[in-house]
């Protein structure tokens, strides 16, 4: 609650929160909100501009772009959240274990994350997708894996601070198991910085997911995934700008929302100015 109030006082945070709330609403209730069947063809209205009937115009099959965006919000936004969650959870676990255990395990894990972080993340995701095959869920997995090393680094550095606290030493002295110490004592105390980092990464996940779909490696037709919508629209680029502009604007709005929210959260929760990936 305190965090929320602080967030609302922060201009970036407030704007981000509002945008993200709007986006989440669309993602959760998009199919119910869509005025038309997102897959229905309208033969007489191909490449239509915005009108009362089609508020954001239509695509090359005469499908209603507003409905497609609303329904597609689910596969775009929720999948990006899932990808971020996978990367954050896996990274936090690895980072905490590595930081807590220290020694050889830590050394090996950290050298591995160094090496993996040296691979540009889009390239990394591309390679994983080349192995798993093209689908939206595989793209989610690829992004999750690509995010893991970075998150592990952050979680580890927080763990190194927490590890020296008394309550951890006490738990150790009580003879608690490794799983209990990590799960009950260390993880909860590393959660705040990890969440901040995770929020900023959602924006990046959305853009990467759309990019992978655009390259033909993520969602597959006829899914109304936003990146895929733009990729398909390229064939008809010079006939109507709407099929590119509408999903493009949607991606930008969502990414701006999460970027603002992430920056706001960072200001509120840990007031150091960090970098952005």
């Amino acid at each position: 609650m305190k965090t929320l109030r602080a967030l609302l006082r922060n201009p970036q945070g407030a704007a981000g929160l509002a945008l993200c709330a709007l986006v989440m609403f669309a993602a959760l209730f998009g199919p119910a909100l869509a005025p038309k069947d997102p897959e229905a063809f309208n033969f007489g209205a191909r490449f239509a501009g915005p009108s009362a009937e089609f508020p954001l115009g239509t695509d090359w099959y005469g499908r209603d772009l507003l409905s497609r965006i609303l329904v597609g919000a689910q596969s775009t936004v929720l999948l990006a959240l899932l990808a971020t969650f996978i990367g954050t959870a896996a990274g936090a676990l690895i980072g905490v274990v590595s930081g807590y255990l220290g020694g050889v395990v830590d050394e090996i894990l950290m050298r591995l994350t160094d090496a993996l972080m040296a691979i540009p993340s889009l390239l990394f995701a591309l390679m994983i997708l080349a192995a798993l095959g093209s689908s939206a869920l595989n793209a989610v997995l690829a992004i999750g894996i690509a995010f893991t090393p970075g998150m592990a680094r952050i979680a580890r550095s927080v763990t190194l601070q927490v590890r020296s606290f008394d309550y951890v030493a006490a738990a150790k002295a009580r003879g608690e198991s490794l799983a209990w110490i990590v799960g009950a004592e260390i993880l909860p105390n590393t959660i705040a910085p990890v969440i901040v980092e995770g929020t900023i990464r959602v924006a990046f996940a959305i853009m990467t997911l759309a990019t992978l779909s655009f390259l033909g490696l993520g969602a597959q037709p006829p899914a109304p995934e936003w990146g895929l919508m733009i990729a398909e629209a390229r064939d008809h680029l010079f006939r109507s700008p709407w099929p590119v502009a509408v999903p493009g604007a949607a991606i930008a709005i969502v990414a701006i929302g999460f970027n603002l929210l992430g920056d706001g959260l960072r200001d509120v929760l840990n007031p150091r100015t960090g970098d952005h990936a």
Partner: protein
Amino acid sequence: MSASFLLRRLAYLALTAFLVSLIVFGVTQLLPANAATMILGEYATPEALAALNERLGLDQPAIVQYGNWLGNAIQGDFGVSLRTSQPVGPSIMAAFGRSAMLAALSLTLVCLIAIPLGVVAGTRRGGPADLGLSVVSYLGVSLPEFVLATLLLARLAGPSVGLFPASGYTPFSEDPVAALRHMALPVITLAVILTAHISRMVRSEMVDTLQSDFVRAARLRGLSKRQVIYNHALRNSMLPAITVIALDVGYLIGGVIVVEEVFAFPGIGRQLILAIQNRDLPMLQAGALIMALTYALANLAADLAYAALDKRIQYK
């Protein structure tokens, strides 16, 4: 900075390269169909497939294939493309050269625009320039390259406007003007998005530096604001900017893959996508390796530059 630091960094570099090659190799082993399927296409018979697999060495155990590849790669021989039956080395290096030209032009443009923008915004914090920059840079940071590239394509290269060619490539040696025209849209796309990143970074560093003790001390000593900015703050803000630019090389590599695809520019990114689509393992190996090494080297160079510029940083 000591020799052992450099050695350790180079060892990481080798480890990275090794891991990348291992991942790429593992990747292609998991795939249901291999290059032979793709080469023979609809004319594949079990016999023809077996024969081709044998000729390409794809019938050997994975570990033997990998060992052979690694042994040759260390000697600088990256094998023969399965798609074109041409040596991988020369064609990937030619593609890399074309991509490097895109990247270099973009980075130059970015440095010329982003750094002054960031400085102006940082020194006039809260002013209209600062506000404008932050809105625009949020937009830039949040717009994937492919969206911007496709929109630029539609607006500037369409049949009605035709300001720039929609796609393709002309070598500099043949026609410098055409070469630049072909590179204009990809470079603009990359530059806009990188500018958003870097100017934001420079701005926040500028703000931090201006609030720092030594700047305040300088102001108290009676130096003018202009003097403080140029003599103290700017130099100190440049250091993080160098790191950001190096980090953004990773971002740039991703961007290059995307813009090359959108504008059909025959660079290394397009080679990589083609290699994935065609199960062309040697090409994929070499392409991924070169990209990862470029990124790693950029980071190393940034660290060295940082150390050289800032005497306060001591590397063990």
